[in-house]
């Protein structure tokens, strides 16, 4: 059995990388530079950092890269950077992509398999790109009798709703797209859209199995929405604010809330598994029962978008868990106050607090994501009556118990303003 690619040579791999870089350089010089010059000559750009970007300035940047640093610094303070890069969609999509790869490898190791291996030469790291290309190349089949506008709109709505949740989550002090005072409430308001999208897509497919899957999604998400919100409510009682940045700050001032509210964290974890339709709560997509549930009629990139959306949602809920219970970006300082780089001095871009916060936030989020992947390897699918019973009877009771614990902590003078454990 061929377990490893037979023709792997490290020298060849390095050689191919060098060839790739050479080609990129050639294309940039022959196509990119003339294009940029045309743009800069004919379109006046606004001044950035007291300087107008002229072709002359651009050429000096090519020669001395350190002159780009003020411009990058300027860009990093814009809203566009927050929305598009960090902590917005690119960051979330990157984590989602890594999650997909890690999930496949992790599950494979658990099940005594190897997992993706060939694409990308090293342990199949480009498997996701290969899958994405395949999905783009496939034909999108719309069932006859389907409600076409709804059928096309639902996947886009799904991804954008997932991205909207990401917009509310602070990843580092100051790095949040929408820092509202009702942040937590807004998260739950947006999460409420998902069952609607699932049901609308299921109805639009004009097929029986998707319809059953859509109804299941509706039942499941409504049953778990309430314990979900109630478990987060105890955190709000302790911190006294709905603002997510404020919640993190109050945890930095005292201790992580998971030490005070372990039951609440457990309820939140279970409910988010149900919200994400992951095993053991993947009833809306139960393969052996209702083909693929509400995803039965999807094909090509529609399926790809729904998968991307669900993994972005996984990141969003894991990040929310970190913010609510694991102290957000709080963690011991590992970065030096100043850094020296040999050729280009990037010191103006470097922010010790932000770098440290990003590191700890990413590490914690990844830990929670791994915890969310774990049940897939060890658990069978749950049945709908047991699921509803768990949601309505058990988790709500547990969440209420923890609300009383939170109230006792506040009125006992342990946490809250002027409490014993508040530093």
């Amino acid at each position, binding site marked *: 059995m061929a377990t490893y690619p037979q023709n792997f040579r490290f020298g060849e791999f390095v050689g191919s990388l060098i060839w790739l870089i050479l080609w990129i350089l050639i294309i940039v010089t022959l196509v990119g530079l003339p294009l940029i010059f045309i743009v800069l000559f004919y379109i006046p750009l606004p001044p950035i950092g007291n300087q107008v970007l002229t072709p002359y300035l651009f050429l000096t940047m090519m020669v001395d890269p350190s002159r780009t640093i003020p411009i990058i610094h300027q860009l990093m303070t814009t809203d566009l950077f927050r929305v598009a890069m960090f902590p917005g969609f690119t960051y979330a999509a990157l984590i989602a992509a890594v999650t997909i790869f890690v999930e496949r490898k992790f*599950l494979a190791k*658990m*099940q*005594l*398999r190897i997992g993706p291996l060939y694409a990308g030469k090293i342990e199949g790291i480009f498997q996701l790109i290969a899958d994405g290309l395949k999905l783009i190349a496939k034909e999108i089949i719309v069932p006859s009798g389907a409600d076409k506008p709804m059928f096309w709109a639902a996947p886009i709505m799904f991804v954008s709703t997932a991205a909207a949740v990401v917009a509310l989550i602070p990843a580092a002090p100051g790095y949040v797209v929408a820092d509202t005072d009702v942040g937590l409430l807004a998260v739950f308001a947006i999460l409420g859209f998902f069952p609607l999208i699932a049901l609308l897509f299921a109805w639009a497919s004009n097929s*029986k*199995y998707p319809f*059953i899957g859509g109804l299941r999604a509706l039942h499941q998400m409504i049953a778990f929405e309430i314990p979900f919100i109630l478990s987060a409510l105890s955190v709000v009682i302790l911190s006294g604010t709905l603002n997510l940045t404020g919640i993190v700050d109050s945890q930095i001032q005292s201790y992580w809330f998971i030490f005070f509210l372990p039951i609440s964290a457990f309820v939140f974890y279970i409910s988010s598994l149900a919200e994400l339709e992951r*095993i*053991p709560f*993947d*009833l809306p997509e*139960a*393969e*052996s*029962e*209702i*083909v693929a549930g509400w995803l039965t009629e999807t094909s090509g990139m529609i399926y790809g978008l729904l998968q991307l959306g669900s993994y972005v949602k996984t990141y969003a809920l894991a990040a929310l868990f970190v913010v609510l219970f694991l102290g957000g970006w709080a963690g011991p300082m590992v970065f030096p106050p100043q850094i020296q780089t040999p050729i280009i001095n990037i010191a103006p871009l470097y922010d010790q607090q932000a770098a440290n916060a990003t590191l700890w936030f990413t590490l914690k989020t990844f830990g929670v994501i791994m915890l969310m992947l774990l049940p*897939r*390897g*060890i*658990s*069978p*699918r*749950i*049945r*709908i*009556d*047991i699921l509803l019973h768990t949601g309505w009877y058990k988790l709500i009771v547990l969440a209420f118990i923890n609300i009383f614990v939170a109230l006792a902590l506040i009125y006992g003078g342990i946490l809250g303003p002027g409490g014993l454990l508040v530093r």
Partner: protein
Amino acid sequence: MTSLEDKFEESKKLGLQIVRETEDDRLMTLSVGPQHPGSGHFRFTIKVDGDYIVYCDPDPGYVHRGEEKMCEYRNVIQNIPHLERPVIHDSNNITYSYSLAIEELVGIEVPRRGQYIRALASELNRQVYTLYWLAIYGIFLGHSTMFMWPTGDRELFIDLLEALTGARVTHAFNIPGGVRNDIPDGFKDRCVRQVRYFQKRLKEYEDIFYNMPLFRQRTEGVAVLSKEDAVKLGVAGSVVRASGIPYDIRKAEPYDIYNEIDFKVQYMKTGDCFARSYVPFLDMKESCYIIEQLLDKMPQSGEVRAKLQPNPKGPPGEAYRRVESGRGALGYYVVSDGTPKPYRVKISVGSFRNMLALPYLLVGQKLADMPAVYWSLNYWPVEADR
């Protein structure tokens, strides 16, 4: 151009009982299979009222290959390779009873070493079949690890059978008069080692699957088949043993050397989905002990095959012999008219009888339990269609 309406009117004239659904119907008709991921080469129509199944109509026959008719055009030896096609992963058992029936017709005695090797191959193959069944059962309940582990451990026995017979799945090893060839050198040590390893793995299966609370919740008390109903429906194999009837052909009418082997018939009394899924697992455990005993008690040397004439034929007559396969009693009724080709061959399989219990068990269950109940019946569609 015929519209849907015309087709419907036409089908009414032909006398087909097609009932159209209307929008205010309470019942929804679902067609499960043959392209449904939870059905295999088999189709059944179910009607659901909300989440409850109120009606079930099995419709087998998608993989009918006319094995019985094909037997009438070939002589008894030529029949073996195509007779194992219905259950290629249990091929030693499906040719076992055929060989027994032909031996009874022709009137030959199998050497003792041949009988032992036959039983050994049949036990190894039973493990292969049951592991495959267990893997599918795992994925039907959404447990992907339980799909991967048995499929991987199946390789242990497939490798052993490959060393023994030369083929991975379709062995054509049992022939009238004994087995095709002797066991290779060092086979016994290898077999013992791999069976010991497998026994350790069985404990892990129990931990991750059978003792899992979610699995228990899903299967315990679901689709109970009582003792009386099991007898009335005539179910076979693990299904009848799960309902509290310790009936195993290896004990009830021992063939070859099974009366010299010490083993217990595994059965459970509850008759629910859990019992039906647990009894094959207990059988696997028992099979490991049987394999070890067979290796110990086997004569060290001797013939493995009785001498036969090139085209064996017996006097006109008939014979019926059956063995315990992975899916219950598997019998062959062979009629000979004195020529080398059989006059009639009838295969009686456990799968078909188990399938008949499906409509009775499925009614009243929830839609989510449909794959769990269906596959717990130990039904192999290809074998039932023959």
